């Protein structure tokens, strides 16, 4: 069904289906181009317009996935493919599966809420909303693209709005933070391009189609090299230590709505792409790199948590906590088990919601106190008990309190790595032990944050903006839109797990199938021969998961 390479250049795929994904993707972008034409002196109608578009697109996603998507099917669905720039072999091919579908929904929810959170933006509002909507489209594109070049274009398209959104609407150090962000991510994305081209031009057929790339057989050295390149590219985004240093600057300098998107959606692109490309396309190399990913994950958890504890700036602390939480995703991805990989997806969705709510609430606090330095605050609970209640709920979710989504994500990842039969027991013990130390560190820095900001008596001299007072209905709405799914997933995880379960099971099966052959190979470095062990697997027929119907 896919248009592969240059062979079918002019055969436009005539689909009897309505192009749902294209509509979802392009709606915000098209709507954004109209914004300059809207006559509005008071920006009131612009913000309603932008928010309306966001919600409408989200509703469209929900409708599409509810009615047109089959949860029991692990292959790509709602596929569309049109040749776009035939000379480059670039196809407009979109599709979703259990991996991308929850993340597309997450994008819709968080971006819409971020636009609602940015209600008070008065500086260049038109440009702001144009960029937000453009970014909305690009994010959906990253998760839905099934063509390597299209993926890369979407990846890049999303960088420019983020850069501008930080550098125009950011804090005092915004230029530095934005430049650092763009240099990191742009430099890293070169690796995507090079890796993508290398894979595309390898072998007899030249294709950018991801499914076809996944079916190619690459030599070992080549696969390792491409894997390493992609790991750097996505590692910047996730972020993985030591490529994380753009993140605290970008998060703390960006305004709260942008931080919501940065933490809620952008970081997930890294995790998503790691599963989509590194595991699915390069499973052999993944077996080699998996122990490294686990170790990096543990480093992320401990290092992020300790660095977070030392921060005095509220948003920087939350930023480092994101680094720590994404460490769990790495461990889950590299666990070689169904539970672990499923847990990684759940952790991404859950962290998206939790981090967005915490960054949003930090913005709500900042609007009233005009400082992010926690030592200068104190006793805020008396003036704004509702914000206090919501902040407490968000922090509890972040420290993996049962009954909230974060717990389910981390528990399943722990179960995944514990039950994994691919690792040496000693290695597993060390990893689980250290990752669990993160569970002790998380409440230390999050509860200290609550204590410093909200508890005690307000004797710091900071006057809360009288006219703002406690949380407004709009702010309550945003926070509850994020907290309700967090609690729903925590109470009954199946609401989330069933959306991706068949897909993550398929991914796990795929990597487990290559595991014995790779592990059995001779001449491996001593690190791997001690860490990785070959599980006893029934020889399953090798089937490619990306194969189209």
């Amino acid at each position, binding site marked *: 069904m896919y248009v592969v390479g240059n062979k079918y250049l002019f055969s436009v795929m005539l689909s009897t289906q309505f192009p749902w994904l294209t509509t979802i993707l392009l709606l915000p972008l098209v709507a954004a181009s109209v914004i300059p034409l809207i006559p509005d002196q008071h920006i009131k109608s612009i913000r309603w317009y932008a928010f309306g578009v966001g919600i409408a697109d989200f509703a469209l996603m929900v409708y599409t996935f509810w009615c047109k998507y089959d949860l029991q099917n692990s292959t790509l669905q709602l596929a569309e493919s049109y040749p776009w720039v035939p000379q*480059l072999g670039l196809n407009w091919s979109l599709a979703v599966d259990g991996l991308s579908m929850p993340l597309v929904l997450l994008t819709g929810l968080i971006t819409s809420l971020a636009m609602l959170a940015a209600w008070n933006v008065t500086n260049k509002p038109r440009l702001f909303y144009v960029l937000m909507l453009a970014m909305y489209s690009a994010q959906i594109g990253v998760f839905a693209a099934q063509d390597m070049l299209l993926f890369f274009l979407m990846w890049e398209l999303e960088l420019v709005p983020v850069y501008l959104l930080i550098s125009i609407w950011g804090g005092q150090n915004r230029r530095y933070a934005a430049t650092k962000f763009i240099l990191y991510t742009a430099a890293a994305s070169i690796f995507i391009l090079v890796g993508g081209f290398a894979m595309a031009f390898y072998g007899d057929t030249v294709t950018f189609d991801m499914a076809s790339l996944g079916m190619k057989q690459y030599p070992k050295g080549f696969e390792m090299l491409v894997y390493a390149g992609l790991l750097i590219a996505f590692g910047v985004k996730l972020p993985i230590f*030591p490529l994380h240093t753009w993140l605290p600057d970008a998060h703390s300098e960006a305004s709260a709505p942008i931080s919501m998107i940065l933490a809620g959606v952008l970081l997930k692109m890294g995790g998503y792409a790691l599963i989509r490309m590194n595991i699915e396309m390069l499973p052999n190399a993944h077996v080699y790199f998996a122990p490294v990913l686990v170790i990096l994950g543990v480093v992320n958890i401990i290092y992020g948590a300790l660095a977070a504890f030392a921060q005095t700036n509220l948003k920087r602390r939350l930023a480092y906590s994101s680094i720590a939480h994404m460490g769990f995703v790495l461990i889950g991805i590299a666990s070689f088990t169904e539970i672990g990989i499923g847990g990684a997806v759940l952790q991404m969705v859950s962290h998206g919601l939790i981090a967005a709510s915490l960054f949003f609430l930090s913005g709500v606090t900042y609007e009233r106190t005009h400082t992010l330095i926690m030592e200068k605050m104190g006793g805020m609970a008396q003036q704004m008990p509702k914000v206090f209640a919501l902040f407490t709920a968000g922090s509890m979710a972040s420290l993996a309190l049962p009954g909230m989504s974060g717990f389910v994500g981390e528990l399943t990842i722990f179960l995944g790595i514990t039950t994994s039969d691919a690792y040496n027991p000693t290695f597993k013990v060390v990893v689980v032990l250290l990752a669990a130390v993160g569970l002790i560190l998380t409440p230390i820095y999050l509860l200290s944050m609550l204590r410093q900001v909200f508890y005690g008596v307000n004797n710091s001299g900071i006057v809360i903006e009288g006219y703002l007072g406690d949380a407004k209905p709009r702010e309550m709405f945003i926070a509850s839109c994020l907290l309700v799914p967090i609690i729903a997933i925590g109470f009954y995880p199946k609401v989330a797990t069933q959306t991706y*379960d068949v897909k993550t099971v398929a991914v796990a099966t795929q990597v487990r199938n290559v595991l014995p052959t790779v592990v059995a190979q001779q001449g491996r470095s001593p690190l791997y021969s001690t860490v990785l062990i070959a599980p006893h697997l029934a020889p399953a027929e090798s089937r490619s998961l990306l194969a189209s119907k």
Partner: protein
Amino acid sequence: MEEIYQYAWLIPVLPLVGAMLVGLGLISWNQVTNRLRQINAVFVVSLLGAAMFLSCALLWSQIQGHAPYTRTLEWAAAGNFHLNMGYTIDHLTALMLVIVTTVAFLVMVYTDGYMAHDPGYVRFYAYLSLFSSSMLGLVVSPNLVQIYIFWELVGMCSYLLVGFWYDRPSAADAAQKAFVVNRVGDFGLLLGILGLYWATGSFEFGEMGDRLQDLVQSGSISNFLAIVFAILVFLGPVAKSAQFPLHVWLPDAMEGPTPISALIHAATMVAAGVFLIARMYPIFEGVPAAMNVIAYTGAFTAFLGATIAITQNDIKKGLAYSTISQLGYMVMAMGIGSYSAGLFHLMTHAYFKAMLFLGSGSVIHGMEAVVGHDPSLAQDMRMMGGLRKYMPITAITFLIGCLAISGIPPFAGFWSKDEILGNAFAANPVLWAVGYLTAGITAFYMFRMYFSTFEGKFRGNETEIRHQLKSADAMAVAAGFKEPVPAFGPGAMDTRELAATHAGHDPHAHSEYPHESPWTMVLPLMLLAVPSMLVGLVGTPYANYFEEFIFPPSETLAEVAQKAAEFNQTEFFVMAGSSVGISLIGITLASLMYLQGKINPAAIAAKIKPLYELSLNKWYFDDIYDLAFVKGLRRLARQVMEVDFRVVDGAVNLTGFFTLISGEGLKYLENGRAQFYALIVFGAVLGLVILFGVT
């Protein structure tokens, strides 16, 4: 009878509904909800009352011999992995349900009086209801993961309730300390769960125990590993039940309102650790080394708590250390294999300790009328004395509690404690000796507390003592130990009072003498006095109904009956007589020192100054932990941040792209000309495509 089992899920759900509705009301219609104070309270209390009724019905049905009932539903799944949640009702669960619901019900009634003037009245009921729900969910858990879930949830409720008066920095510190210390225990529990799951592939208690036994016997798992897993699981109870070395959070948790101290930090949540050991008995029983660790930890904690309680002047802190000590007894009982005695003590302790705490709340409530809302005065026993004259019902119920905890027959504590000591003597004389000595100390410090609070003459109006206490407080402030903030007790949460200074006489001290508490507070005290006196009679060695109902999963009823038949009356009289004897010595000493004044305690303290200091400073645990963990972690975190800033970030900034695209290129980007950047990327794409196209 079957129907009540099908609806048993309502027991934890009903209080949850109450908490959620009241909580939503507080968030959405704050002022209206706060104005409807007692309507909210009645709503919450009646929901819990319904749960209590259902629990009693279940207990009755279990006593009648109904088979255990379990119902689950799939909660999470990934591939072949399935995790079920649900509820199970057996003897142990039914007993715990009744203990939790009755104590919670009475505490809720009491709260109406204690928190009557607090602006957080409604919020307090919402938290109480949430806690009851979590605690009930914990006891009905059919598997270890669900226990862990509710285990953490009760911890969160404890955090919220200890920090209930959020304008007190000391409360904020205590709440955080409680949560973090408990997380250390949960860390062990989680690792234990993971390890046991890895080994046995199950989360069910019985299945886990059986498989672990088989695995150890067949040699698939080394004995050492089994010991490690069991001890890791035991770390959970160590934190939750405030056992050495993680006991430090419980005394600080007394910053919470007193009804909370009674419900959470005396009767129910802290006993959850003992409950978990009971639930995990199939595992622990097969690992004798772990049982020894449990027994010795319990015994040491019992002794530690008692020795610290001797020197406490804060009535609530004294009771808190007494709780630690009594929990030590229960844990020790579990460790020596005295399963039903441990749970029996859990039950009797729940009632008499809840009553003692509620009594102390009543005393504080009365004292606040004289000294104002200042915990450092209202809770200090040096300010009290002679209160029996002013609050007779509180005094009598407190005395009953003291007699019960000291093990004077026929009060409840005697039967349970005596059974533990008897079994300890048979199991290990060292443990018995520690428990026996602790029993004497317990009687001493409890009666020290009773005499200096309720007997003698009232000292609340003696300005000299007051100044002495305040200056000690001021010194702590000057030394930086305490922040100089006005303290607010129940009834002083009005924001206008934030401006109130504490110069001169407290404006809330409106009376010369304390008064008896309102009926909502006194009635629960009287109702709790009944089980404190009589509940022990279900477990007398002559007719041990309790043991016939609660016995270890590995034993059968016939074995229990056989054991009961071996009862030796002479042996019982010797054991009971000696433990009553040491209690009476303790009481006599206390009366000589604090009632008749024949012995001067200050002189003794001066003679054994190092020991006195050790007890007064709580064996220096807080100081050591502060130095080793709190300060150490802060230093480590700072170092990590420095490394992050200087090394990681610095390296990338220097060797990275900042130098690569130096000068002109950087200026372009810093001017915000992102189009230029986009151009570079698209140019690069195009260039590469052409390059590849050509070759």
